[in-house]
């Protein structure tokens, strides 16, 4: 019985040793350190944003604040994993001072007490910030929960269908291509298939892709079928529109137009990017993120040297013309990331200064130099809008017809239920079966059938 206690003694000694060398030195003004966390990393995910923070934000801020050291804490993982990490950081009242969040997480983080309204953390300086007047209300809404501002929006995006012009030419399809109903998409897919394209269409499905399935697939299609996921206080259950969406998925995944296995792979979304760049996928539904961060010729994750000439984009058509939400012919979905202040920050006022600096006109312009995206600031957008055809297309055509996800805390769970419904289709279930299972799950999530349509 002597042996087992020895590791315990060693552990005790180790703990004593650790405790004796904790943070002892009193933090003087020159020791102030601010940390920025984002799901971006140089040479990987959202590379240009990581580079911007390291090369522009940090030197720029440290130049005016000599006694402050700014550090960047990069990540390059799936959004769900990043979310878990941040939630655990904040639960432990730790983590970076400025944190990147998807706008859709603001509600549940606020309810959990992980984040606080900006004015509560950053003080009165927040209200008098010059940037507020430059950010349109709809975009500000990305960082708002229960009428309070929790985060500064970084910009917004829109979803379109990207297509490979080279493959389209091979299949004898027109360029520019703009489908006007869902049949057009399927017809183009069949032509591509006949021309030997391995995977004619990629519309994300399944649980492995996470929110990318919901946001790139189900929700735009649902909007195109004339319905929003949450409207007038009720969630959309197994309605006609939902069954139409699942039926469309079924036609894609049982006719050889799409690759069911790709949806099940642990790294399926990354692979779909590589395959599109390699000319193995004809049509792919994605946000403009795909254009500026994935197939971007220089810094993209799956760069395409001939992107500008070889990749086209088209709006997502209604199931039938005029059948999308608000009677539109086309539909899309928008979202966007926000930056929040950590309420447990040791230097909240300084953190707000840094956050405001990151959202200043000069900073936004510097960030846009590396990529094309719709920033949150109107003054910057009007200057740079014409620089990139894709950016202009999103701003002119897509944003006027787009829709946003409901900023409710239960949404992420509803999103998982939608992903599971598409996963059921991919593995061979019928739309009616998948819709019925979804309806049951939805009712248990949102508190009964009273809150569900369908």
């Amino acid at each position, binding site marked *: 019985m002597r042996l087992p*206690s020895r590791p*315990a*003694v060693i*552990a*005790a000694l180790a703990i004593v040793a650790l405790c004796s060398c904790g943070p002892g030195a009193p933090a003087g003004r020159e020791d102030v350190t601010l940390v920025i966390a984002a799901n971006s990393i140089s040479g990987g995910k959202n590379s240009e944003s990581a580079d911007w923070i390291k090369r522009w934000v940090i030197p720029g801020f440290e130049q005016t604040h000599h006694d402050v050291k700014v550090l960047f804490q990069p990540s390059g993982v799936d959004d*769900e994993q990043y979310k*878990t990490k941040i*939630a*655990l950081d904040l*639960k432990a009242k730790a983590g970076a001072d400025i944190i990147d969040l998807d706008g859709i*997480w603001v*509600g*549940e*983080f606020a*309810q*959990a*007490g*992980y984040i606080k309204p900006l004015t509560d953390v950053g003080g009165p300086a927040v209200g008098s910030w010059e940037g507020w007047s430059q950010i349109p209300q709809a975009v500000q809404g990305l960082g708002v929960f229960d009428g309070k501002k929790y985060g500064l929006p970084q910009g917004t995006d829109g979803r379109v269908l990207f297509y490979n012009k080279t493959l389209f030419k091979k299949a004898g399809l027109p360029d520019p291509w703009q489908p006007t109903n869902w049949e057009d998409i399927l017809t183009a897919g069949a032509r591509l298939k006949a021309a030997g394209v391995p995977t004619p269409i990629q519309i994300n499905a*399944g*649980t*492995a892709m996470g929110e990318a399935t919901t946001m790139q697939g189900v929700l735009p299609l649902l909007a195109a079928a004339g319905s929003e996921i949450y409207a007038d206080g009720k969630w959309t259950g197994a309605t006609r529109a939902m069954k139409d969406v699942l039926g469309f998925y079924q036609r894609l995944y049982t006719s050889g137009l799409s690759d069911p*296995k790709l949806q*099940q*792979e*642990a790294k399926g979304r990354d*692979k779909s990017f590589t395959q599109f760049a390699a000319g193995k996928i004809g049509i792919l539904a994605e946000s403009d993120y795909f254009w500026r961060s994935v197939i971007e010729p220089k810094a993209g994750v799956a760069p395409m040297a001939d992107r500008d000439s070889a990749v086209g984009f088209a709006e997502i058509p209604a199931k039938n013309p005029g059948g999308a939400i608000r009677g539109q012919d086309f539909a899309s979905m928008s979202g966007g990331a926000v930056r929040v202040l950590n309420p447990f920050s040791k230097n909240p006022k300084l953190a707000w200064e840094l956050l405001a600096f990151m959202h200043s006109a000069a900073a936004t312009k510097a960030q846009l130099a590396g990529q094309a995206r719709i920033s949150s600031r109107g003054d910057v957008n009007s200057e740079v809008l014409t620089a990139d055809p894709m950016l202009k297309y999103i701003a002119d055509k897509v944003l006027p017809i787009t829709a946003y996800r409901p900023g409710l*805390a*239960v949404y*992420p*769970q509803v999103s*998982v239920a939608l992903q599971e419904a598409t*996963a059921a289709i991919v*593995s061979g279930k019928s739309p009616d079966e998948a819709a019925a299972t979804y309806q049951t799950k939805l009712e248990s999530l949102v508190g009964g059938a009273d809150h569900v349509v369908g």
Partner: protein
Amino acid sequence: MNTDAAGLGRARAVGFVLPALVLIGVFLVFPALWTIYLGLTDYRLTGLAAADPQLVGLDNYTTTLTDPRFLSSLWLTVVYVGGSAVLGQAGLGFTLAWLLRTRHGPLRRAVEGVVLLSWILPSTVVGFLWFALLDRDDGTLNALLRTPGMGWLLDYPLASIIVFNVWRGTAFSMMLYAAALENVPPSHLETARLAGASVPQQLRDVVLPLIRRHVLTNLLLISLWTFNDFTPFVLTGGGPEGRSEILPVYVYNIALKGGELGVGAAVSFLILLINLLFALAYLRLLRGRGRRRAAGRPPA
């Protein structure tokens, strides 16, 4: 009879044991009790229930035990433990130890080196090596077999992680059995051979009775390790659609990915109970053996 062999006295003895007991209390007993408590709440990672969790009684347990996903996960775990630990690692480990027992020199060292290497490499490194081996698009295995596009991890997820774990964990069983076989007196085997016993007969009647306790200890350890093994997550993430979602991965997906910490705690407690059952069954077997043998022997 004096039981105070060290002559410390009660107070000093307590003083010596106390730090260990405190550590066990803080790092083992308290978390276990805390898990039981969390399992009775609707605690979540985010949202309202994260700030103010409510007691929900046994709801988490009833929903879990009737959840087809949990039941299929339990079954997958049983197959995973049975296939990779009991049959795979113990079987292959014993075979290797038996074949190598009379060999010395470079061959034995080479085999032991290779087997050990797979055991000492960090899990994440090994995970990505196997991912590269089994990948559907550019996997090494597909290149070797000339089967492009064969999705091993998608079509045979459970078999893939079983083979992976056999490869990974055989070293321990091999070393333990090699040590155990050293204890089998060569004269016993010699006698058996002279009496005309075949190899299976030698194994059954000479070797197995002598190393039975080693076998049981080995099985206890590796089945517990395998039962709680999270490494397959690196290969499949529990997918596709839960077909390789063994219990540790299920807990991760429920508690951290899905944010349902309360349910996760309930499932963890169920896993703890299953582990205890495992351990008790093995210990009973071990003790039963020991007592019978002690009783059968003449007093020394």
